[in-house]
C-alpha cells in the first residue's frame, strides 16, 4: 500500500503539486487521471522517488521514503517496476536481455535461473517467440508487453505505468489494460497508472484519482465516476459525445 500525505512539489516559481493526499491499495489497479499539465507525471515521479517533494510524505507499506537511507532507498527502488510511456526498452539489447536486465542487476541467480524466469514472464505476456528480436523489430504493442514483462520479472511490490496505452490501437490498448489488471491481482501488487485514456478508466479503474492544477479534485471508483456530479470531473471524463451517451445509458439503467 502506498500512502501519500500532503505532497507539495515546485520547480522554481511553478507550484506543480499543491498538497495531494491519497492512498493506493495492494492488489488493486489505481488510475491517476487529469488534463495535460495537471501534475500527473510529476506526481508519478514523486511516487517513484525521482523527485523529492518539498513538503509531505510518501510511504510504501509503512516505510516513509524521505526517512530511508541511500541503501534502503535503493532496495525499495528494486521493488518497483515501471512501464514507461515509450516503453523505454534498452535498444542495444534483445527482448530477452531486456527482460533479464533487472535480474542481472539485482539478483545472484545463475544464467539458467534468470532465463527460466524471463521465459516465464515472456510467456505470461504472450511473447514466448520474440526472445531474440531487437526492440526496434517489435510493434508498439509488443514493446509495451516487453516493458510489462521487464517491470514484473523481479517480482515487484509496486508497479507504475505512465500512459501504457498511448500510441496503441483500441484493441491492443484493451489487451494491455487487461494484462496489467490481471498481473496486479495475480501478484497482489500495488499498481498505479497515469492515463488520459477514458477506456482504461472505465475498464480497469478500481480506484481513480483526478488531478486538476496540482490538486486532487476527485477520487473514487469506476462505478462512482458514472454517478458523480462533480463538474470538473464530468467535464473531463465525458468530454466526448460517446462517453456522454454511455453515462446517460448507465444512469437510465440505474433508475
Amino acid at each position, binding site marked *: 500500500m502506498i500512502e501519500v500525505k500532503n505532497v507539495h512539489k515546485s520547480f522554481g516559481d511553478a507550484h506543480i503539486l499543491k498538497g495531494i493526499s491519497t492512498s493506493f491499495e495492494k492488489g488493486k489497479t489505481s488510475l491517476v487521471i487529469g488534463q495535460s499539465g495537471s501534475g500527473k507525471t510529476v506526481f508519478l515521479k514523486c511516487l*517513484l522517488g*525521482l523527485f523529492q517533494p518539498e513538503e509531505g510524505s510518501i510511504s510504501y507499506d509503512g516505510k516513509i521514503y524521505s526517512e530511508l537511507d*541511500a541503501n534502503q*532507498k*535503493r*532496495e*525499495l*527502488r*528494486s521493488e*518497483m517496476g*515501471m512501464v*514507461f*510511456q*515509450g516503453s*523505454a*526498452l*534498452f*535498444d*542495444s539489447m534483445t527482448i530477452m536481455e531486456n527482460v533479464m536486465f*533487472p535480474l*542481472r*542487476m*539485482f539478483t545472484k541467480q545463475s544464467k539458467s535461473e534468470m532465463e527460466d524466469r524471463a521465459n516465464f514472464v515472456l510467456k505470461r505476456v504472450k511473447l514466448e517467440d520474440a526472445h531474440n528480436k531487437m526492440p526496434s523489430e517489435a510493434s508498439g504493442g509488443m514493446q509495451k508487453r516487453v516493458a510489462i514483462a521487464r517491470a514484473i520479472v523481479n517480482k515487484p511490490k509496486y508497479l*507504475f505505468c505512465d500512459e501504457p496505452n498511448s500510441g496503441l490501437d483500441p484493441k491492443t490498448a484493451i489487451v494491455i489494460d487487461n494484462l496489467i489488471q490481471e498481473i496486479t491481482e495475480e501478484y497482489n501488487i500495488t499498481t498505479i497508472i497515469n492515463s488520459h485514456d477514458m477506456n482504461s478508466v472505465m475498464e480497469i479503474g478500481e480506484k481513480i484519482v483526478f488531478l486538476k492544477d496540482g490538486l486532487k479534485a476527485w477520487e473514487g471508483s469506476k462505478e462512482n465516476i458514472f454517478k458523480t456530479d462533480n463538474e470538473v470531473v464530468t467535464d473531463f471524463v465525458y468530454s466526448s459525445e460517446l462517453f456522454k451517451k454511455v453515462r446517460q445509458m448507465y444512469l437510465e439503467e440505474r433508475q
Partner: protein
Amino acid sequence: MKYLHNIGAYFIMIKDMFRKPTKWSVMKTLIFKDIDDLIIGSLGIVAFISFFVGGVVTIQTALNITSPIIPKYLVGFATRQSIILEFAPTFISIIMAGKVGSFITSSIGTMRVTEQIDALEVMGINAINYLVFPKFIALMLYPFVISIAMFLGIIGGMAACVYGGFSTLDDYITGVQLDFIPFHITYAFIKTIVFAFVLATIPSFHGYFMKGGALEVGKASTTAFVWTSVVIILLNYVLTQLLLS
C-alpha cells in the same frame, strides 16, 4: 552563469561516476562492449589518417628544405618530432572528439530522449556509473590507439619520402633515430591519458544532461565536439608548458 553551472554539474557527474558501482558481472560486459565500439572501432580511421598525414608532413618538410647545407635526414627527424609530440596525441584526439565523442553523446542522448536513463534510475541503478564509467575505462586503452598512430605516421612518412624521391631510406631512418628523447614518448602518453579522460567525460556530460528530442541530440553532439576540442587544445597548451618548458 550557465557556464559555471555546467562546470559544477560536470564535476558532480565525475564524482557520481565513481559512486554506487554497477555489479561487476554487468560492468565487465559494458567495458568490453565500449572497448569494441570506442577503441577497436576507431583503429581503421586512425590508421588511415595517420599513414597519410605522416606522408604529407614528410613531403611538406622535404619541400621546404631547400638549402643544400641542411642534411636530408632532417626530414625523418622533423616527421618523428611532429608525429610523436603533436600529431598523434593531439590531432588524433580532435578527430576522436568527432568520431567517438559524437557517438557517446548521441548514444547517451538518445537513451535520455527515449527514457532509457529514467528506466535505469527507477530501478535504483546509478545511471552515470552504468553509462560513463565503462567508457572511461575503455578509453584508458587510448594510448594503444595513439601508439599505432605514431607508428603508422612514421611509416607513412617513410613511404612518402622514399617513393617520392625526397631522400633515401637510410637518411630517413637516421633522421628518425636522431637525438631521440624518451621523455617525449612519456609526454605524449601523459597527454593521451588526459585527453582520453576528456573524450570519455565531456561527450557523456552533454548526452546525459541533454533535454528535448531528436533535434537536440544532434545539437548536443555538435556542442560536445566543440567543447571537447576546446578543452583538448587548452589542456594541450597547459601540459606542454608544464612538461616540456
